[in-house]
């Protein structure tokens, strides 16, 4: 039983941090240009040393 007192908060905290990360990425507009994110990796940024 004493393990539960430790494990349940850990499980909830992990879940909540995942939720927070999702909501943060959503509010920062990371899902607004999914196709663009896929092709942007091909851009050579040679003008910045």
């Amino acid at each position, binding site marked *: *039983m004493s393990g*539960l007192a430790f494990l*349940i908060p850990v*499980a*909830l905290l992990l*879940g*909540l941090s*995942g*939720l927070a990360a*999702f*909501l943060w990425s*959503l509010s920062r507009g990371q*899902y*607004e*240009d*999914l*196709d*663009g994110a896929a*092709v*942007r*990796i*091909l*851009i*050579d940024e040679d*003008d910045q040393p």
Partner: protein
Amino acid sequence: MNGAAASDHVEFVLPGVKCAGCIAKIENGLRPVPGVHAARVNFTTKRVAIDHSPDLSPDAIRRTIAEIGFDAQPIAATAPVAENAESKALLRALGVAGFGAMNVMLLSVSVWAGAAGATRDLFHWLSALIAMPTVAYAGQPFFKSAWAALRRRRTNMDVPISIGVILATVLSLFETIEGGPHAYFDGAVSLLFFLLVGRFLDCVMRDRARDGVTALMRETAPGATILLPGGGTAWKRADAIEPGMRMIVAAGERFAADGVVEDGTSIVDRSLVTGETMPESVGPGGSAIAGTLNLGHPLTVRVTAAGEQTSLAGIRRMMEAAGQSRSRYVRIADRAARLYAPAVHTLALLSFAGWMIAGAGWHQSLLVAVAVLIITCPCALGLAVPVSQIVAAGALMRRGILIKDGSALERLAEADCVRFDKTGTITRGRLQPIGALPLSEREKGAALALARASRHPLSRALASALEAEQVTAAAVDELREQPGLGIEGRLAGARVALGRPSWLGAQADGGAVLQVAFLTEGSAPKLITFADEVRDDAGATIRRLEQMGLESAILSGDRRNAVAPVAQELGTTALVDLMPADKVAAITRLQHAGHRVLMVGDGLNDGPALAAGHVSMAPASATDVGQSAADALFLGDGLMPVATAVAAARRTRVIVRQNFVLAIGYNLLAVPLAIAGLVTPLIAAAAMSSSSLLVLANALRLRGCAR
């Protein structure tokens, strides 16, 4: 970012962005421009968002983008914010519901596994603490919609969902306080999660299509140069132009208002409003229609109607009016809910009453009633429609057919006759010379030089045909365009001319209107005939549609002798010389007779008809108005996508019905158990998930529906 205090925001649509290189070119090209703080291309929506200092005008930015090599159209910056708000809110609710469902399920599994006594109570309390905020937040889309429906004394799918979820939560809380064995928190939260998935997919589908269609009214001229009464000129925006003003419209400009020509002669391309391919010549006293294009010479026009009074604005109003009949369409899921919701509620109420009469006490009776509500809650029903439709839309998209929303697929399946526009729909909307050009190599060079100097559609068609043959233009000088007649110049001292056959002394073939003559001094004029060619598979498409039971006909704004050969070739009937209002009338007549019309068209003149049809499609080359009025767009040179889309929509309807049968069939099995009081939270959760998976798997069969 420079973090400048004063910063303006502007967005442009960039139809030409196709790859990573384009993104880099635009962003790197804009960054060094003084006054530009930030520029970011959104590849999905084909837009670029630019933060710039106020002293840099949007027009200057547009020119810069044009120099980089891209065509940019400005859009109002306020619009896109509201557009994606709904799907964002749903995604946030989905995230919250997902978190809640996972954690509550984790706790529930331990309870099912045999946790008892204090542990069970602790887990129930924890579940309650997670589930109640989750339901309050993630349930909002359903509660709001249900409340809106109830206030209008209607019912929709969200009413049973809301009642079920709220009742289950409240009763489970009561169970928890009492220390009872059964709490349905997991059921309530995972129900919300599954339904939000369905709701989100539905919303994504609409957003995706909206991004593909830039609903601009590009045809409207932004403004015009106005002659001031005291002499001199000033540029005024279209909404500041008033009747009585005199505007100067240069060659290549669109008229910003309706008016009467006072001075000058020119030719005008009216295809936007009338659908007619051939330009008309106008002189003093002739009429100018807002949105049409002046091809020849500068004209001075006295404005008779501006702003909301123009015929272009009239077409827009007509579209709004025509679209109202379609907004009355009831989605298939809501139609199902009209039957389903009362049945479910009666059933739950009856089981409550039955157990009360049997003397089970109100607590036990209420538990049974809630179990019935949860079991019958249209989880699979809520998924059945959106999942099928998004799978079908995805399959169609891979075939170059863009469906704007789920209801379009439903209505497409119901269509029983098709009406086509001619120009740009049945035909490619591009003029091409018929047969080989009857010109020598030397003449081709001269013809190209002449054709390039004119904006007339036939000249442009000739120029692009010659360019395709890789002809080099000859050095023709003294180029002069004669309005309504043609263009002439001198090649090594000899007169060369391209224009109307009668102007150059050639005998035009009877009936063939799209002809030009080419003349070199000293030799006989040569005739070149053009045609707007019918799409290759137009005949096959119409036959396939016929096999599927859809009768086709043509509604055209063009003249009889331009439409008749096409109709004959395809073996269909045609109505000709139709104004936009006549097309709407023709469609309304059919709908009153009980038909459901699929309208396929592309032009502005088809806009009202597209809005009036039960469902409508447009080629991707359509005008913006056509694109925004149509329910579906298709890419490519063929017409077959129309038939493919109808076939896929019908297949989707079959799958949706199967899914309904599956969902209801599962209810028929589970409801007796619930009424008998045998359903525990474990059984409810298992039944709910399995029926959702079944519906999903069935919907995935639609992946190949567009073949």
